[in-house]
């Protein structure tokens, strides 16, 4: 089967600063990949390139299917009611019913007619997920979508994203710097450092996962990130 995402020898520089220095990555259809790395390692840039927001790259990449993205900030249009923000993902099609269903799925059935500014951070992020999913993407890009949420909301969002992924089975590329988040959700963890893929781990654990189940993997992934496990324990 063709890859959902295929990246070969991708280089990207902003002026003289090299951000991506020859990245290779294949993502199978339906695969959940977490891209881990420190701030500034180029992981968000990689995501933006796949989403078509950054051009002027060397190397090649292909994303044959429909792509959706959810950003760290929900980026809803504040002057459109929630359901109209969701149907924005359908691009012009008047999809009130489709939008409603998507809102049901992200557990916001009663907020279809609300204004985005009245939502909490977690609610707005769920609307953003609904907008990304409503177009039934083959590839769902998640750019630290839980980064701005409080810890409790983040836990609920982890479960929600896993459920949505299991229901729709898009290939997911989740950019994060949270090792636990990656271990909780991903089939495979790819570690990026200074613009290169430095490690790749399959996480072969039954879902839903518990933190206790991935203690050993955690130590290894942290080692790849250059963090001493004694400090992290």
């Amino acid at each position, binding site marked *: 089967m063709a890859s959902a995402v295929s990246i070969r020898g991708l280089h990207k520089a902003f002026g003289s600063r090299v951000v991506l220095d020859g990245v290779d990555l294949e993502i199978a259809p339906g695969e959940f990949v977490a891209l881990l790395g420190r701030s500034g390692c180029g992981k968000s840039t990689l995501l933006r390139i796949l989403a078509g927001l950054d051009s002027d790259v060397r190397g090649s990449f292909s994303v044959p299917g429909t792509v959706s*993205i959810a950003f760290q*900030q929900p980026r809803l249009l504040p002057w459109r009611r929630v359901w109209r923000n969701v149907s924005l993902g359908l691009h012009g099609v008047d999809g009130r019913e489709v939008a409603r269903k998507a809102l049901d799925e992200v557990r916001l059935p009663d907020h279809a007619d609300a*204004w985005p500014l009245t939502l909490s951070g977690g609610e707005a992020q769920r609307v953003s997920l609904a907008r990304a999913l409503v177009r039934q993407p083959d590839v769902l890009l998640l750019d630290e979508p839980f980064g701005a949420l409080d810890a409790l909301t983040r836990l609920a969002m982890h479960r929600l994203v896993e459920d949505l992924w299991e229901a729709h089975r898009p290939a997911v590329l989740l950019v994060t710097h949270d090792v636990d988040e990656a271990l909780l959700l991903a089939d495979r963890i790819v570690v990026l450092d200074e613009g290169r893929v430095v490690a790749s781990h399959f996480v072969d654990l039954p879902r839903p996962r518990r933190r206790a189940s991935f203690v050993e993997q955690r130590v290894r992934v942290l080692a790849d990130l250059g963090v001493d496990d004694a400090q992290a324990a």
Partner: protein
Amino acid sequence: MSISVAGVLARPKTAVPRPRKRSLPLRWISPVALVLLWQAASSTGVLPPDKLASPLTVVASAGELIADGQLGEAFAVSLGRVFFGFLLGGVVGVVLGLVSGLSRWGETLLDPPVQMLRTLPHLGLIPLFILWFGIGEEPKLALVAAGVAFPLYLNLHAGIRQTDPGLVEAAKVLGYTRVERVVHVVLPSAVPQSLVGLRIALGTAWLSLIVGEQINADAGLGFLINNAREFLRTDIVVVGLVVYALLGLTTDYLVRLLERRVLRWRAR
């Protein structure tokens, strides 16, 4: 005629705390007292009618002017001047604002001269306008148009430039073309700032009208006032001023209504 930074995206002007309702009647005490004092001064002859007519005389004169149609006619003429001047300046301000807001070349070529010209006090242009347009209706319309075009241009331009690039990107990923992004994201996000511009423009329009109507007016509120001055009819002068004030308040109120309707998404 400066650009207001109030009312940018996330800061609704309506969030300014208003005086509580309970205190409203109390706030009328001093204005009413002032009017009573004014009436007392007029009645006792302290304030002679050729300096300022008494409130009661003003009210009576207003009644007469309305009854014989003079006020209605002057009102219609002045309203027409503001309307057409506003239309003219509005088209110019909006078109220039769109071009320079939406295109880099437009901004490069248009913005510098407009920014230079806006530092001119446009009311000071009267001598030139008289030389260019004579002393008929044209300089009055031109003055109103000039007063309107600048605030509309500045705020529309600023509103477009303040668009959150994150929202534009989100639309881009969803497959929206440049034109669609302008329609669905850029222009709607420029609306709050543009409405600020509209309010400033309307205020300036009335001010420009009042000044413009000093130029050899043979009709309109300015004519009514100037004519009354020649005959020391301070009562009619005050009536004219009150009508100017009411017109300004009314248009301001209409824009507020429009804002409340169009910007209802900002209400919490």
